[in-house]
């Protein structure tokens, strides 16, 4: 039970079917889906944040409102929308993406993009205009100025990526809907993630296993956090 001492969780941890690759495959699917989704979101979000941060255009405030609204968009609704798109009758039905990791990546991309864009935009807008001006007047092209701006805003962008990753990997509703929480006959995860596995284990009364999986999830998030912060720190002196 959740109220039991932590030491009682040890047998549950040891009992986890590591040999069969069950937990390992769940971790792999979680990292694969969330990692790819966040990479794609970042590649999409940073150029958008640069354009939104530097240029004025009609409808900019509306676009900002959409992005900010997206940060609080319910994940189950995103799951339903993606399910509609990838279902047999949907526009992407012919690609047969339903209950695949690709469908899960699409839904996590939709969930991770608003926080990454919004936080990156705030970080980029905060870069001193004189620093951008210096990058330009010293002979930089638009790309050079954008690169300088990204470097100056890297801590904010790292925070944005972590927020997006956190939202993606801790999310249950949409991946459950579009992924189906499936394991193969050999017990290896097809579309089961740490969160959907925790949900399943808890529902079936295996609380110790659920808590151990939860601990694995927290450790993973901490590790990713440490790696991203380290990369940001190393970039300081390299400029």
């Amino acid at each position, binding site marked *: 039970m959740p109220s039991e001492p932590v030491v009682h969780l040890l047998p549950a941890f040891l009992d986890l079917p590591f040999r069969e690759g069950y937990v390992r495959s769940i971790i792999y699917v979680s990292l694969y889906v969330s990692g790819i989704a966040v990479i794609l979101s970042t590649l999409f979000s940073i150029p958008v944040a640069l354009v939104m941060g530097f240029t004025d255009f009609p409808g900019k405030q509306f676009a900002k409102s959409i992005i900010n609204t997206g940060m609080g968009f319910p994940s189950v609704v995103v799951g339903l929308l993606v399910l509609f798109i990838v279902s047999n009758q949907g526009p992407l039905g012919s690609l047969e993406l339903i209950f695949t990791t690709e469908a899960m990546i699409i839904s996590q991309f939709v969930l991770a993009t608003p926080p990454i864009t919004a936080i990156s935009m705030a970080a980029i807008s905060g870069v001193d205009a*004189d620093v951008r001006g210096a990058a330009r*007047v010293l002979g930089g092209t638009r790309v050079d100025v954008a690169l300088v701006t990204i470097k100056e805003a890297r801590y904010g962008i790292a925070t944005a990526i972590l927020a997006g990753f956190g939202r993606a990997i801790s999310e249950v509703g949409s991946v459950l809907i579009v992924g189906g929480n499936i394991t193969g006959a050999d017990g290896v995860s097809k579309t089961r993630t740490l969160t959907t596995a925790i949900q399943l284990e808890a529902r079936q009364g295996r609380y110790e296993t659920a808590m151990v999986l939860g601990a694995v999830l927290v450790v993973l998030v901490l590790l990713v956090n440490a790696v991203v912060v380290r990369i940001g720190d190393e970039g300081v002196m390299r400029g």
Partner: protein
Amino acid sequence: MSETAAGGTGRRREAPSGDAPIVDATEVSVTFEGQAVLEGLSLAVEPGEVVAVIGPSGVGKTTLLQVLALSVEPDAGRVSVDGVDAWAAEEAERLALRRRVGMVFQSASLFDASVARNVEYGLRVRRSWRERLEASLRSALRPPALSSRVREALSVVGMAGQADQSARSLSGGEAQRVSFARALAYDPDVLLLDEPTSDLDPRNTAVIEDAMAEARERGIGVVVATHDMHQAERVADRVAVLLGTDVAEVGETSRVFSQPSDERTRKFISGELVY
């Protein structure tokens, strides 16, 4: 300070096109949000001269420098660099012209990187992407040695010993000296300085003024916007007095200060309210 300010090589460059102005703004007008900042202003800078732009705060000195730096496109008039009309040129050619101009801002505006990385920025962006990639790969394997141009530019402002220091850890005066070195490193034809010593102590001010003299010796045209008339008298060959939206008077420094031909200039120099 172990190094002397203006301790560079003192090498003198060839004037780009004889004694013709290196930067020439003619009948330039700039409007911001419906308000005229500059109207029909003309100013030419020749190689190897220091021109001080003086005028009250908010008169448009910074805007004038931005126009000369090709950062702001004038609403009317012409800005040419070495005889080429910059705003009539294609974007690629304008970038090449812009790269002949260096600028130092009132705030140092250094990048969050080491002193050396800041100073080499202008040199780096002038390389091809392939060269940059190769340099990055090399530096990942082995820390690169300081290039001679970076070392020389830092020597001019007495900062060669702090090349590896983080720019964020510098004092205001040191940061401004690095900012000067950053603009000098790629050997521009003209150097634009926007109130470069307004926040500095006398020692750092002296270093920057010596560096201006070194740039002048090298044949670089220098334009310094300042509200410090004593500084203008110390460093400038010519003075342009910016009052209202136009240059009220431009001429040899000693003559402008001793015998101004414009009544508004006389009042401004004597400390009377001009407008």
